[in-house]
């Protein structure tokens, strides 16, 4: 799509673009280039000597069982977060779309966690689930569950999944609600006249018509779980216990900042960049398709 009417100036467009391009080059391209450059280097932790090692950092990564474990953790984490937040939000949105009374009250309560920072969400949930003083721990103990996420990896994973899903529900809920409201009422009415009950209408009309929204949210939620949950994890488990919740992004941070392994961390950054590029490509292909939908 192009404008028919344009202005002419030899310098003005460049001047208008300059601020954004300057920031983009200094804070995006330069560091990203550095990441690629460092990923081929071996540095000692004090930054005194540097050696060019070609693909050694990548080879070392792919020989490291911890890295595979981190991939596995990330896969479990991201898919749980995406699946749960989509299912729960869809259920809530369908119900909120049905009711008339109190609709605004429900909506307001359901969207406010969007305003909560990931790290704050982590702190809230780790407090409720704290092994010795948490209010939920108390209930779990009364039910005979031995709850201690500081020692048990699967419980730590469960905690970060719950906190991340809680934070993502408002976002998905709003998108589903907008999607539901854009389904023509006449379709639903026609189905009702033909004798289809609410369940039949949901599966045969609502679900297929919502599928573009659902797919879009799936990609967005995967990206969210991949990157934006850093705060949740850093404020609760810090990747532990025994790396049970160390997702890829957390490992980049941990290896680079805490362990000062610049080469290894940069190599991981480069792999992450490739993953983001793939995810973005999928998202954009899909958006182009949606235009024709």
């Amino acid at each position, binding site marked *: 799509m192009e*404008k028919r009417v344009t*202005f002419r*100036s030899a310098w*003005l*467009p460049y001047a*208008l*673009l300059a601020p*954004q391009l300057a*920031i*983009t080059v200094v804070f*995006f*391209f330069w*560091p*990203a280039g*550095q990441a690629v450059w*460092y990923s081929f280097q071996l540095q000692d932790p004090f930054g005194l000597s540097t050696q060019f090692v070609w693909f050694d950092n990548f080879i070392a990564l792919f020989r490291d069982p911890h890295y595979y474990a981190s991939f596995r953790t990330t896969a479990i984490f991201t898919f749980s977060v995406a699946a749960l937040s989509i299912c729960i939000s869809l*259920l*809530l949105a369908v*119900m909120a779309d*049905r009711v*008339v009374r*109190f609709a605004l009250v*429900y909506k*307001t*309560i*359901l*969207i*406010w966690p969007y*305003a*909560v*920072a990931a*790290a*704050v969400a982590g*702190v*809230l949930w780790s*407090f*409720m689930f*704290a*092994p*010795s*003083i948490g*209010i939920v721990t*108390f209930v779990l103990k009364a039910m005979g569950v031995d709850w201690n996420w500081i020692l048990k990896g699967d419980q730590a994973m469960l905690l970060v999944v719950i906190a991340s899903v809680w934070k993502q529900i408002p*976002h998905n809920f*709003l*998108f589903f609600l907008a999607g539901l409201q854009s389904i023509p009422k006449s379709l639903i009415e026609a189905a009702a006249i033909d004798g289809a009950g*609410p369940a039949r209408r949901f599966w045969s009309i609502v679900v297929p018509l919502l599928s573009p929204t659902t797919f879009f949210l799936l990609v967005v939620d995967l990206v969210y779980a991949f*990157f934006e949950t*850093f*705060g949740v994890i850093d404020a609760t488990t810090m990747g532990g216990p025994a790396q049970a919740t160390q997702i890829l*992004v957390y490992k*980049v941070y941990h290896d*680079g*900042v805490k362990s000062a392994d*610049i080469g290894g961390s*940069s190599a991981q*950054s480069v792999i*992450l960049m490739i993953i*983001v590029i793939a995810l973005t490509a999928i998202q954009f292909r899909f*958006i182009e398709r949606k235009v024709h939908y």
Partner: protein
Amino acid sequence: MIERRPVLDVISHAVLIGGALVIAFPLYVAFVASTHSLEDVMRMPMPLLPGGRFLENYTQVLFAGTTTGSRAAVWDMLINSTVMALAVPVGKITISILSSFAIVYFRFPLRNFFFWMIFVTLMLPVEVRIIPTFKVMADLGLLNTYAGLTLPLIASATATFLFRQFFMTIPDELAEAARMDGAGPVRFFWDVVIPLSKTTMAALFVIQFIYGWNQYLWPLLITSDESMYTVVIGIKRMIVGGDAANEWQLVMATAILAMLPPALVVLLMQKWFVKGLVETEK
């Protein structure tokens, strides 16, 4: 309403009430905990009704910080967060409205190249370039400064796209009329484009305010000086170790203070918030 289904209505309300309770429960627990003494909070189970130490706890975190963890006063952190949450949307809106105006309303060499340059920044979130960006900031002497906190966050492809999309919907007749009346691009930008873009700006502002306020990884890397902490970082620094070592009532008071401004923005500007959210991501 297509038909009356009383049973389904009851189920709907039940599901929504259940969902709302679960969603709101952490907030309630945090508020209750922030109004008690540490001994009460550490008791198992902790009380579920607000206590009487609201003023003491909040005054202490606001002006003195915690005693076991970070001693930085939350008041200063709130100011840092506010600066960040205002600078990010203002900066983002300013630079992206300018660049998308250039891309939409001018034809010039390398136009597509620049557009793609901005576009690919979508694929380079802070998280994938942690170490090198930190080094760049250190080289530029921007650690522990407001410029360092905000500048890298104001470049964004999403805002540029949003404005570009919106500019495409401005009728060509307006630009033609402006040109016939002898208005140049700058005049057209000020008198036509900016007034028309107000709703888009408002929606973006709300979303970016929340985004700026809630930043975590970036301030964590860039601030080592307590006086530069944002409130989200401050909470993390108050948590020093196991359950018993933390002053939970103060941590929760800080959490409430950290949630309050963005939550108010969401609730009071719900219309803009929903518009901004649905549009920026499409």
